[in-house]
């Protein structure tokens, strides 16, 4: 048991909730689910004190449905108590009464282990009434979802947990003020929460010193695709793309050449050879024109068709659109159809403009949530970096790699 619930004992006995939030703010921990929002700042938005509305909720987002991402599964299966401990500390910091683990349906082993670990935590008075003899009490429940990518979106998740369709909600009000059943709620990613006990035990300065850059801590990076050793590794935040790809994943398989990668799940822009020395932290990847996202890279080799790959991504997003807002519901299937036509050899030169237009029409500010803008990120960078491949498909009326 990593930490052995030392952090829980420490916070409920020695620290005020405000002091815990201040510590996490000082550590510079940013959300590891993809958006990179400062965790302590998120907690600080929750109304505190006697006037605050209860029950308040803390939710661990364990939905992990971003294609190419498998880091949270390793944390959930490997050490469920680490997550539970992080959740108790986070819940204490916002004075939550109830905590939920929102787990994706496919993680059966994680569900079993979490269920058992929650029961053990109750049996040892780390959950339930008067935790470790303090006056703080917390209930924790496991909710196993029934599918759909939209559940990973913060407000979609809230609706799913309430037993509704997982459509997004308008913001503001933000969940910190009005979330689950209209009550103050914080939703944090699994990896984010797993960092919390260690920050409590070792301090903000220690956490910051773990990283290669100004952003604190470590990150679980991953690599999948035709690399020699696909996997996931906990490394200092700011480790370069090259080190992850070449040293840890072993580079692309023999006989293949590296063409590019999407660094943080399906909804991030491509990085190429020229970006290999980019540090994988939030700021550096953004400067390179992409996003750190989940930090689990999907690697594309020279025998994999970029048009086919982007088609696969856009079909995913079109299918997973919740249908709530028109641009996303109508635009994504249209984008996928155009890409399918190009891949089939039925593309026309004007399709390039059509796709470019869609990356604008479905971009930030035009849709209700971030799903469609996220879907456009790999597409717009592919149109830029792999323009020749698209044009060759259209010119030769076939996929050159098939």
């Amino acid at each position: 048991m990593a930490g052995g619930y030392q952090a829980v004992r420490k916070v409920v006995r020695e620290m005020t909730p405000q002091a815990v939030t201040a510590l996490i703010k000082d550590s510079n921990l940013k959300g590891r689910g993809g958006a990179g929002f400062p965790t302590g700042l998120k907690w600080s938005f929750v109304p505190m004190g006697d006037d605050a509305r209860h029950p308040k909720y803390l939710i661990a987002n364990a939905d992990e449905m971003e294609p190419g991402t498998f880091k949270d599964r390793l944390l959930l299966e490997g050490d469920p108590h680490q997550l539970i401990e992080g959740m108790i500390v986070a819940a204490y910091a916002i004075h939550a009464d109830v905590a939920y683990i929102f787990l994706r349906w496919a993680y059966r082993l994680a569900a079993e282990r979490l269920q058992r670990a929650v029961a053990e935590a109750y049996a040892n008075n780390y959950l339930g009434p008067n935790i470790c003899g303090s006056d703080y009490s917390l209930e924790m429940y496991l909710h196993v979802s029934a599918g759909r990518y939209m559940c990973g979106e913060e407000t979609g998740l809230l609706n799913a947990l309430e037993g509704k369709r997982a459509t997004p909600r308008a913001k503001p009000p933000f969940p910190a003020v009005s979330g689950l059943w209209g009550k103050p709620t914080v939703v944090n990613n699994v990896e984010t929460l797993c960092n919390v006990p260690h920050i409590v035990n070792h301090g903000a300065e220690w956490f910051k010193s773990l990283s290669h850059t100004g952003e604190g801590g470590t990150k679980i990076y991953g690599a999948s695709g035709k690399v020699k050793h696909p996997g996931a590794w906990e490394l200092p935040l700011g480790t370069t793309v090259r080190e992850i790809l070449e040293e840890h994943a072993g580079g692309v398989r023999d006989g293949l050449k590296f063409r590019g990668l999407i660094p943080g799940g399906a909804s991030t822009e491509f990085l190429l050879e020229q970006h290999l020395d980019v540090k994988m932290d939030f700021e550096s990847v953004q400067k390179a024109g992409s996003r750190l996202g989940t930090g689990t890279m999907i690697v594309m080799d020279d025998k994999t068709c970029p048009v086919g790959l982007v088609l696969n991504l856009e079909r995913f997003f079109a299918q997973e659109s919740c249908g709530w807002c028109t641009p996303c519901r109508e635009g994504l299937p249209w984008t996928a159809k155009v890409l399918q036509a190009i891949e089939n050899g039925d593309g026309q030169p004007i399709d390039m403009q059509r796709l470019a237009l869609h990356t604008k029409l479905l971009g930030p500010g035009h849709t209700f949530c971030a799903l469609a803008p996220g879907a456009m990120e790999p597409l717009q960078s592919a149109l830029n970096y792999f323009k020749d491949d698209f044009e060759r498909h259209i010119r030769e009326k076939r996929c050159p790699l098939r």
Partner: protein
Amino acid sequence: MLSEHLTMLTEEIKREIEAEMHHYPRKQGVCIEALKVVQRHRGWVSDESLRELAEFLEMTPDELDSVATFYDKILRRPVGKHVIFVCNSVTCWIMGYDRVRERLTQLLGTTLGETSSDGRFTLLPNVCLGACDHAPVLMIDGDTHLDIEPSKIESVLEQYK
């Protein structure tokens, strides 16, 4: 008031649903879990089950169906004895999903979304299963099968009689 004609919701199913109910401040909150409980016992959620469950949860059938049809892991059509979810997301696609799908449809004599004529398997496409370091991946009845080669599929299916 529950009516007399209830047949799909056995006492056991109701007990399992009630055990989850206290996790949510409102009765409706348990409905996704309740649909999963029904499916675990019945294999899928029929119109009859849905109507009875709605009554039990004090929802209208349409309200419950709007939830049931949103979530792809709630099956509103009958399925075979075993359900195969084959991952078609990006990493599995790079690693050979197309060949895996071809071999599956060939062995089962069915297309995606259908049930084999002997009723043994239903083949459904699925988004990322979160095991991309072992792609291609498929899941049968909740068991994840990693590093699937087309040549391995027949022996994997043999495990499910």
